[in-house]
């Protein structure tokens, strides 16, 4: 008989791996990617590819330079690339998309130790860096289906195709709003992946069925924002469907690394994100606040965790005696 393997128990495992979880997130993002390509044309695909390629190459190169084992096999860099792309306007110059990806992966993720170690969501940090550096390009919105009228120019929207305000901006300016059904299907201006609520919800249901995420953060996040803005007199449906609320709540705020481990902590985190988003929407000069709210709450995660560390089994009862 060959030598027997001796290890500490348990001797069986659930079979879930980091790669299978990350692949599930990629799959859950595919409807939103497809919707982006349908609504904003082939250029959306180009932006997506640029972000994914630069994220993965950036991760591979950094790991190599830092002499660490390769980690691109876990697919987390692919997710960062897709998420960043979905948070960009379709007309963004490709070099900016590439730059944003490198900032997200190299600076925010790898320089802090790689997967599981970054203290803010890489894609959100990447988006905010681009937002601060290139405010004009980051708020140049193309009209939905602009590419159908552009013919040869489908890949680079002309002046006629752009400058359509997002619903939130329109709301702030008092301009005419798109119909609710159009909003639900994503036929509106905005970041590539945030417009189609239907696609995002399909992804959400998939993540829940596959038990990749718990629904606590998205529900608390969206619920708080919708409730607070409704109390301030805005239409809850428009608030729900506009801006990056669903994309942020479902895919960005639920990032494992940058959200709390405990259920209680998740509630605080989700409500906090929703509160900050509502405050920014209601009072700040920015029309949208999802990215900033998640970023701010990311930073608070260690404190939330300290506050919500559960007491070991039976300890409360022992003290009560």
């Amino acid at each position, binding site marked *: *008989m*060959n030598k*027997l*393997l*001796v*290890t*500490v*128990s*348990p*001797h*069986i*495992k*659930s079979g*879930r*791996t*980091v790669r*299978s*979880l990350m692949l599930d997130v990629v799959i859950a993002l595919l409807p939103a990617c497809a919707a982006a390509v349908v609504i904003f044309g082939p250029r959306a695909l180009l932006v997506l590819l640029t972000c994914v390629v630069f994220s993965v190459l950036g991760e591979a190169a950094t790991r190599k330079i830092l002499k660490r084992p390769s*980690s691109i096999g*876990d697919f*987390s860099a692919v997710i960062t690339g897709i998420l960043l792309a979905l948070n960009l306007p379709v007309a963004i110059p490709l070099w900016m998309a590439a730059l944003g990806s490198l900032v997200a992966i190299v600076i925010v993720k790898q320089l802090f*130790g*790689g*997967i*599981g*170690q970054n203290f803010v969501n890489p894609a959100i940090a990447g988006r905010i860096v681009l937002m601060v550096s290139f405010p004009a390009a980051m708020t140049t919105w193309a009209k939905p289906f602009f590419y159908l009228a552009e013919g040869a120019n489908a890949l680079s929207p002309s002046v006629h195709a752009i400058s359509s305000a997002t619903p939130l901006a329109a709301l702030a300016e008092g301009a005419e709003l798109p119909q609710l059904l159009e909003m639900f299907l994503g036929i509106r201006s905005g970041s590539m992946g945030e417009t189609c609520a239907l696609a995002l919800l399909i992804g959400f249901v998939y993540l829940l069925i596959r038990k990749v995420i718990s629904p606590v953060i998205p529900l608390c996040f969206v619920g708080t924002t919708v409730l607070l803005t409704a109390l301030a007199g805005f239409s809850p449906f428009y608030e729900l469907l506009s801006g990056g609320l669903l994309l942020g709540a479902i895919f960005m705020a639920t990032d*494992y*690394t940058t959200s709390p*481990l*405990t*259920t209680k902590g998740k509630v605080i985190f989700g409500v906090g994100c929703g509160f900050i988003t509502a405050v920014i929407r209601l009072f700040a000069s920015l029309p949208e606040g999802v990215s900033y709210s998640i970023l701010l709450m990311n930073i608070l995660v260690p404190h939330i965790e300290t506050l919500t*560390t*559960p*007491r*070991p*089994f*039976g*300890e409360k*009862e*022992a003290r009560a*005696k």
Partner: protein
Amino acid sequence: MNAILKPVSKVRGGAATPHFKHTADKDSVRMPAPGLVVIPMQQHIGAPCRPVVKPGDLVTVGQVIGTSDAFVSAPIHSSISGKVKAIRPLLMSSGAQCDAVHIENDNQDTRCEGIAPVTVTSKAELLEACRNSGLVGIGGAGFPLHVKLNLKDDSGVDTLLINAAECEPYITSDYRECIEFPERVVAGIALVMEHLGIVRGLICVEDNKPDGIAALLRVLNADPGRKQDIQVVKLPAKYPQGAEKMLILTATGRKVPPGALPSDVGCLVMNVSSISVLQHYINTGMPLVRKRITVDGGAIRSPGNVFVPLGSSIGDVINFCGGFKSEPVKILTGGPMMGTAQYDAAMPILKQNNAIIALTESETYEPEESACIRCGRCVAACPMSLMPTLIERYARAGDAERLVKVGVSSCMECGSCAFSCPAGRPLVQYMKHAKLVQRKAGAK
């Protein structure tokens, strides 16, 4: 009619383990005694026994071959008749070394003289019987039974819980006990309740064992004189339902605080096979010399339940079950969640063993270890409300102060965290390490 009770609370977290109860329908088969048995002198928590036989002595089935004067210990008996060949040190899978008595079988199967039914009329006689039966907690820890049952008169224990949850995958030996000897189980419970003054007996069985529940109910209902003081509780089949604190919580709603014992919340927990073996000893006078062992796992040709003379080697038992049909990667005593990986198939079967599981590579693959992604699965899985990923971090940093604060000593090493971890982190190993870090700091 005796109604089946529902659980009054539920276990937090846990692991979605497969059940794999392939041997549930396999009647227990008596294995012939092997040519040689090796009986270690340490088969329980507490003081080891010293051999009272020497090489060349003739011994019989049920004869005492090791005893100790220490309170926390249980005598050890010969499981076969034959000649003591040697007494040699044996390296146990725990890493400890102890003396082991090697006995060569004379194939006469001579029973020890003086073995006769035992009468128990008082608590003292019950404890004496427990000690003489050699019984230790069969659930795994191997706590001597007479120590456990030695409750203070004002202990306030009102409930005897019989653990037949058997939440470990593969193992069916307790289930078979319920089906094959339900009368013995019920009689044993009544005996212990009577002499310890316990008013309520709850037999706790998981809901995926309907035949076991039916067999127990049949016995309970067959005795019209019986008051409804013994009942069956049907628990959800979820790992680690059978852990002592979880069992008490679900069956009675009471929580055993960290560092406390079940008796502190008025409960006494006994394994179903233990109570049955105790009653068998009362009925016959034959101490614990044979155990039912579930033999299963992908590498075993004919899985089943086997009555094994203690001290038989793992290899003897596997050969009795048709040997291997494929190469085993690991051989465990106990279940795959908390069982011990054995380094050698020549290791003997001990009192507290209840299964031999020989796993193939596909059953027990070791996932590649990668960084923690903070997915929180370990936190959600921990039935003791601990945060395994944080404990790992503090253990690696040697931070004993924080380990005390997060309550690592509450960890029962059930493995739910490590089972669930997608990054393949050996969390149970870190829990053990964390306890060591804490102990060392405390010793300073």
